[in-house]
């Protein structure tokens, strides 16, 4: 029998705010343990939570970019369980009335657009961090009560590839909206996968396993692949599926059973009133949202006539896409700009491990540099070096060309002298050429270029040599 995999993802995203969810403690990453705490986030007796409005704004933005219906009234609940990283004995979450419902993310796999539905999206607080050392367990509560957004997707995903694509789309949407960095390695995005199998063509859902402990998109995909294979083997052996939790072991590339948490009972939180959002508030947040990556990519293809693959790279982050569009405004050949950004700019950024925001080459500078090539002031090849220099120093191309004397020598008289000199110095090569060795010309061009430290206009040199050698 053929089986298909049914995959549902549950994602937690740390949303960007200056202060924590229910108190004014800083959310800054990397502070000394327990230095960003107060009676509220430490769960001291008597302290009361007060909802940070920014947290709601961020969650609503997330809901909007994931095409969810934002509910006018939602509320907070206490999710009760005991664990040392949980200071109050319960986590504040939204269980009975989540912030938003019924969203979706459109993904493109093998050039086909597919829709992954989102069941609901809600706000909840993060827990502290356990540190195990010297036989002791220590707790750092700096992370406790940081704002999280939980996104529960419907089991619409059918392969690890789709899961990867879904996560990428979700991430770029949330990044576009400025909601979160969504960095899995740093923990600002966490993802669990529910995986089950069912005979192809049937509708019923079967017993699933929940897979945890993946710390990158790649590992999410690998874990899902492994889990599908494992379940297929298990079905073949006739074993009954059991609902349980499994832990991804990245070293061995396998999932192993782990102790799952019993579902925690929830009860409404009476210290926090309902979250009531009016149409105006939602509309004002909606108006602040940027064009989303998939739409923008399609517009780029239409408007700038660049290939889909280019558009997809250029819209991978909002900042990069903004940069590209700035450049296109200044220089009207979109494909040429795309090439420079994709090859040279992205390479340098990657090498220096910095983002486009920290890049010293402004769109104006890039446009000016390309204009210099068009004018013949520098060669395309030389421009590559000029670009590296621009990237390092932040100077304009024309400035660098001037300072380093890199301007292309297109001055005929100046070149004639050098050509003559080269011919005199290489009588044997000249002879070879005259005997019919075409390659000899190349050598002579090379010598002229060497003499001018690459600044000679190669086309002109060629022309001059051919003329002289006739």
């Amino acid at each position, binding site marked *: 029998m053929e089986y298909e995999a049914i995959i549902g993802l549950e994602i937690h995203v740390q949303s960007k705010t200056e202060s924590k969810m229910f108190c004014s403690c800083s959310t800054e990453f990397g502070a000394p343990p327990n230095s960003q705490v107060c*009676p509220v986030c*430490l*769960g*001291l*007796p*008597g*302290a*009361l*939570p*007060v*909802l940070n409005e920014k947290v709601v704004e961020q969650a609503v933005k997330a809901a909007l970019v994931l095409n969810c219906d934002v509910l006018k009234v939602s509320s907070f609940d*206490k999710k*009760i369980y*005991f664990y*040392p990283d949980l*200071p*109050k*004995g*319960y986590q504040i979450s939204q269980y009975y009335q989540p912030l938003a419902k019924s969203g979706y993310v459109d993904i493109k796999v093998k050039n086909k657009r597919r829709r992954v539905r989102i069941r609901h999206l809600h706000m909840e607080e993060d827990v502290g961090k356990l540190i195990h050392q010297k036989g002791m367990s220590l*707790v750092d509560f700096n992370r406790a009560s940081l704002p999280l957004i939980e996104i529960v997707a419907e089991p619409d995903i059918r392969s690890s590839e789709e899961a990867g694509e879904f996560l990428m789309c979700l991430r770029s949407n949330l990044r576009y909206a400025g909601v979160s960095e969504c960095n899995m390695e740093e923990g600002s995005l966490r993802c669990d996968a529910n995986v089950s199998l069912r005979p192809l063509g049937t509708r019923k859902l079967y017993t699933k396993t929940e897979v945890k402990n993946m710390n990158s998109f790649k590992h999410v995909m690998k874990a899902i692949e492994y889990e599908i294979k494992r379940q297929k083997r298990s079905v073949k052996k006739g074993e009954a599926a059991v609902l349980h939790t499994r832990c991804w072991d990245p070293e061995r590339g396998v999932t192993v059973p782990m102790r799952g948490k019993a579902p925690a*009972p*929830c*009860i409404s939180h*009476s*210290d*926090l*009133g309902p979250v009531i959002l009016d149409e105006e508030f939602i509309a004002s947040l909606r108006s602040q949202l940027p064009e989303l990556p998939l739409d923008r990519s399609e517009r780029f293809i239409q408007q700038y006539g660049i290939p889909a693959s280019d558009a997809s790279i250029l819209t991978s982050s909002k900042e990069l896409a903004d940069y590209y569009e700035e450049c296109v405004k200044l220089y009207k050949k979109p494909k040429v700009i795309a090439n420079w950004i994709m090859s040279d700019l992205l390479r340098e950024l990657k090498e220096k491990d910095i983002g486009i925001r920290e890049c010293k080459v402004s769109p104006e500078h890039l446009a000016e540099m390309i204009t210099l090539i068009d004018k013949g002031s520098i060669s395309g090849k030389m421009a590559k070096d000029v670009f590296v220099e621009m990237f390092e120093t932040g100077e304009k191309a024309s400035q660098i060309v001037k300072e380093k004397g890199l301007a292309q020598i297109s001055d005929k008289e100046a070149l004639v002298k050098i050509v003559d000199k080269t011919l005199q110095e290489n009588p044997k090569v000249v002879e070879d050429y005259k005997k019919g060795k075409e390659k000899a010309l190349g050598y002579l061009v090379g010598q002229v270029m060497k003499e001018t430290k690459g600044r000679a206009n190669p086309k002109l040199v060629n022309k001059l040599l051919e003329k002289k050698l006739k």
Partner: protein
Amino acid sequence: MKLNELTAHEIRELIRKGEVSSEEVTKSVFERIEKVEKKINSFVTLTKEEALREARSVDEKIRKKKKISPLAGVPIAIKDNMCIDGVLTTCSSKILENFRSPYDATVIKRLKANDLVFIGKTNMDEFAMGSSTENSAFEITHNPWDLEAIPGGSSGGSAATIASDEAILALGSDTGGSIRQPASLCGVVGLKPTYGRVSRYGLIAFASSLDQIGPITKDVRDSALLMNVISGYDERDSTSCNYPVPDYTESLISDVKGVKIGVPKEYFVKGMDEEVEKSVKDAIGLLEKLGAKVEEVFLPHTEYALATYCLIVSTEASTDLAYYDGVGYGYRAQSRNLDEMYQNTREKGFGDEVKRRIMLGTYVFSHYDYYLKAQKVRTLVKEDFDKVFEKCDCLITPTSPTPAFKIGEKMDDPLRMYFPDIFTVPANLAGIPGISIPCGFTKKGLPVGLQILAKPFAEETILRVAYSYEQNTGWHRRRPAICDSQ
């Protein structure tokens, strides 16, 4: 008359005129404590040194002619479920035996800003769960009118300390009657404000949707003065209301002419003490004579209030008490592993009544329909009041169906223990304000209390009626003879 026997407003006059110092008042209070505290056990923690230091600094301010607030220099006792920076805050529970709060509750901040002098933390039923103060993990508080009787609860320590003149003012908290019922049983004044009137930030929760801090005082004027200090919006408490705070002393007018008083039929029930019933009816008669319009009214859902309260309170308590796990602070039992730590800590740290309510609450929230149903009935109870307050300015009822019972009498009957709350609980469910004032004594000499209820934020109506009654009677001036007869 000794200084400690005076009311806050009397002391305020003396301090203002420069006739006594805060230090003298504070000393007289501690002299009294030394004399009677062994018999009463009102306090779990005394902060004499800090109090005297604070009193002297207030006196210094007065000497320097600095502007001071009306209650500056007046000694106050605080129920041990309100956090004071650097002071033990135990909720009379073993699990918080060693908990020294690193911050001030909002009410404490307000009292500090008004230069009141903290003399100590008063005993209570553990986590405010009880109506007799017998559920304290540390000691049993005795009723100053009969040392073998309970003072009521859960703010029994605060009520007893006022009745025995060990303090001038006190704060209590009221979840189902915990201010009004002990005030009634100890013959003092206890006011539960509207839910949201006084910030709960720093009040250790028993049941968050019902808890409210309020004054316990010797007379109505003192309650009004203390309300002026503690009331008001607090951005740290999402449930506190941003509703203007009047000067409550302005409502102290001895005139009830035209005031419409409702007497709910459901508050005169079988099983209630005859003497209590008579005292309350006499009081109503007096108010009518003074010009109030009295009529019988109906609150048909009253009979479900207590059961509803039990469900809600246990459910909220079981989650509000999830804080205490032995990890961050408080008592931690020795254990071999994590699960055991939780189990042992909570088993040994909590008393029986607390565990009973946690278990009941855990059962309820795992059967969420019960909780939802209880919330629906709560709405019905509230609607009863809304309807009645369309035609009445206030309601008058007994505070407690019986006077103080003997210590130990009902400890073995947990359900019976809720009986004293039947008249006070509905106000918490509805979030409305209520006061208990003395309205007589039984033949055995035990105080009887009268409860006045009004619609949300109508504390002024309550204070006016209470003040009028008080001015026309003298019950509040009677004092127990602790040292002489017992």
